[in-house]
């Protein structure tokens, strides 16, 4: 991809901006330098990332004025906020005179900047649910003149690292607040020429012209990783992707894997893939090979890092790959647009793009030495937070294979469900589950009645509202623990009609009556809260057709909807009208895990 000149970026950005609808989400920016100069680059990069954003720039340096009070920023209802404060702009003395200040005053100055940043992030959180990105601190360009400063544990550089750690820790305590790794961007661009002294003194531009594209790319990548629904599964080719050579021709001893070059390149690539599995991505195989040969390779080759247990699904056959990807998506019960296809063969990639345009395809370079960089460079694989359930997901999908085996052995669905020995643990307003609940709300597509993507602090607000309930269900069976699989939010509990604002379930547990158990629990919460009827809302999306008749099938009656894009149903909360299914045992939740709404309200 050719690098555009500054004039070309301006021209492109202007034509992109002209086409942006007025509803384009805003990226609110408050900076201690002239962020306006990066504007065209941000427009251009957001467009390229497939996530159009329209930056709004606050007046230079006016952090508190813009964030802590009514201001045009809030009138724009931004979808994301970047707090871009540079150390050298707010504590200029640290730049040249740090030695005269001594360790304690350096520490105080840095702590002051950190607490100012954290206060700004908290203030932003109080006014909006938009994710907040706070630049971390850097003075990298000073390093060129001070080779021994890093020897001093109380010197400016060591203390900045310490301050960045404190900043990260404090931001982690604020919902949907993130560090934007400004120090990392400066380091990647090269500290020496990062700021052009002329542009700085003429226009308070912190970034030299040649580095603006990189700064914009990094910011947009960070922001969109938080905003978009993450991919779920990396589907891998085998020959010349996970090892060098062709297994069918060269045999397990002939393929290049491990040892010296080039085998070590492929082993390193496998190791990186293990890292992605640790971060919650499923791995799958789509390879044109004999299944038995692949099976043997995975089981016995001493240098393989990826083995059967790392793959949620393996398709080694001679069918066209798009068909295999369809089957993988179906087996894992995820959308085709949750798959990333990784294949060294450009013909296979082109076929995939043509046949299944919704599948993401990783562009691999011809030389395997570049594979790792291509994988790490893929913004779709960025994951802002890794939760404990994420890391266990491959195991969960393997347990699923055992369940399928059982299902084939037994005579009826009823018997299968009984033999699963399911245990459901229901709870509501459990703070410890907040992050996982938020994650499910934002990624569940199929079994999702309203697909309302509530932000983290909106969920928290529901938990604290005495008229609402945020309920969840954890499921385990004889094969394993599936973790938290259902989320429901009730509103108007205590009024005549309680409404199901949100009802969703992980598609891994569809068809096991779990939804009926959960609905029975929700109905119980509404009835215990004093409501007489339960209102179910269905909002159609391109993906939630599996639940289009959910309420009808459960004896709800359609009523006139008060929203344009929704269908409303109601059902009396009479005793016995929402039976708990007999095939699932209900487990009482341990008391300490539950955050009770009533005590929260009285705190």
């Amino acid at each position: 991809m050719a690098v555009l000149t500054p004039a070309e970026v301006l021209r492109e950005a202007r034509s992109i901006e002209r086409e942006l609808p007025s509803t384009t989400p805003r990226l609110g920016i408050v900076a201690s330098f002239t962020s306006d100069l990066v504007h065209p680059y941000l427009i251009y990069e957001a467009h390229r990332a497939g996530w159009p954003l329209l930056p709004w720039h606050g007046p230079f340096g006016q952090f508190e004025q813009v964030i802590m009070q009514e201001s045009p920023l809030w009138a724009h209802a931004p979808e994301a906020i970047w707090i871009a404060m540079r150390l050298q702009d707010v504590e200029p003395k640290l730049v040249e005179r740090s030695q005269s200040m001594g360790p304690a005053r350096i520490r105080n100055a840095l702590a002051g900047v950190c607490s100012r940043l954290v206060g700004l992030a908290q203030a932003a959180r109080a006014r909006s649910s938009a994710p907040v990105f706070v630049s971390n601190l850097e003075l990298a360009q000073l390093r060129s003149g001070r080779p021994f400063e890093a020897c001093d544990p109380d010197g400016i550089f060591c203390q900045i690292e310490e301050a960045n750690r404190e900043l990260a820790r404090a931001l982690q305590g604020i919902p949907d607040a993130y560090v934007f790794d400004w120090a990392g961007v400066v380091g990647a661009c090269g500290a020496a020429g990062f700021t052009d002294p002329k542009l700085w003194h003429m226009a308070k531009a912190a970034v030299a012209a040649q580095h603006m594209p990189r700064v914009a790319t990094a910011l947009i990548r960070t922001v969109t990783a938080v905003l978009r629904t993450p991919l779920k599964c990396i589907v891998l080719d085998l020959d010349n992707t996970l090892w060098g050579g062709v297994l069918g021709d060269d045999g397990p001893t002939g393929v290049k894997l491990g040892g010296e070059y080039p085998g070590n390149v492929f082993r390193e690539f496998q190791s990186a893939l293990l890292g992605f599995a640790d971060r919650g991505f499923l791995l799958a195989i789509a390879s044109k090979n004999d299944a038995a040969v692949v099976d043997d390779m995975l089981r016995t080759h001493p240098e393989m890092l990826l083995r059967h247990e790392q793959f949620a699904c393996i398709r080694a056959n001679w069918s066209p790959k798009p068909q295999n990807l369809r089957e993988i998506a179906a087996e894992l019960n995820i959308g085709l647009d949750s798959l990333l296809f990784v294949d060294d063969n450009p013909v296979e990639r082109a076929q995939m793009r043509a046949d299944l345009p919704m599948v993401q395809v990783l562009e691999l370079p011809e030389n395997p030495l570049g594979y790792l960089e291509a994988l790490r460079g893929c913004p779709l694989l960025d994951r802002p937070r890794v939760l404990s359930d994420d890391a266990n997901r491959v195991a969960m999908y393997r347990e699923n294979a055992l369940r399928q085996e059982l299902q084939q052995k037994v005579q009826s669905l009823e018997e299968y469900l009984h033999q699963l020995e399911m245990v459901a643990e229901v709870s509501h307003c459990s703070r410890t589950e907040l992050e996982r609940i938020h994650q499910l709300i934002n990624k569940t597509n199929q079994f999702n009645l309203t697909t309302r993507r509530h932000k983290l602090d909106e969920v928290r607000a529901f938990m604290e509202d005495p008229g609402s309930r945020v309920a969840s269900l954890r499921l385990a069976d004889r094969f394993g623990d599936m973790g938290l699989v259902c989320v429901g939010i009730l509103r108007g509990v205590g009024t005549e009609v309680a409404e199901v604002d949100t009802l969703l379930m992980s598609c891994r547990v569809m068809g096991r009556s779990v939804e009926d158990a959960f609905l029975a629990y929700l109905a119980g919460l509404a009835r215990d809260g004093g409501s007489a009827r339960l209102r179910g809302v269905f909002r159609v999306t391109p993906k939630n057709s599996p639940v289009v008749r959910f309420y009808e099938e459960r004896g709800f009656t359609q009523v006139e909807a008060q929203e344009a894009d929704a269908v409303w149903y109601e059902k009396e909360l009479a005793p016995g009208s929402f039976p708990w299914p007999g095939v699932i045992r209900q487990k009482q939740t341990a008391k300490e895990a539950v955050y009770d709404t009533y005590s929260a309200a009285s705190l």
Partner: protein
Amino acid sequence: MTPIQQQVCRLVGDVFGLPPEEVTLKTSHDTVEKWDSLNIVHLVMAVEAEFGVEITPDDAVDFLSVELICAILGEKGVA
């Protein structure tokens, strides 16, 4: 117009969002409303990248019309 002048006209068009046929040697901060200090910085970056020359802050003060920009480039041996 010389090729250099045409190039400068194109850059000015890109920076201020003007259709190419509207930009002439006489286009200046008097005729273009958005010709402000911020866009002068964009113009400096564009000219430096296009012609591979260094524009000093003193030069930038005179970035007020297509004609003046061409004159500054001429002084720097771009012709």
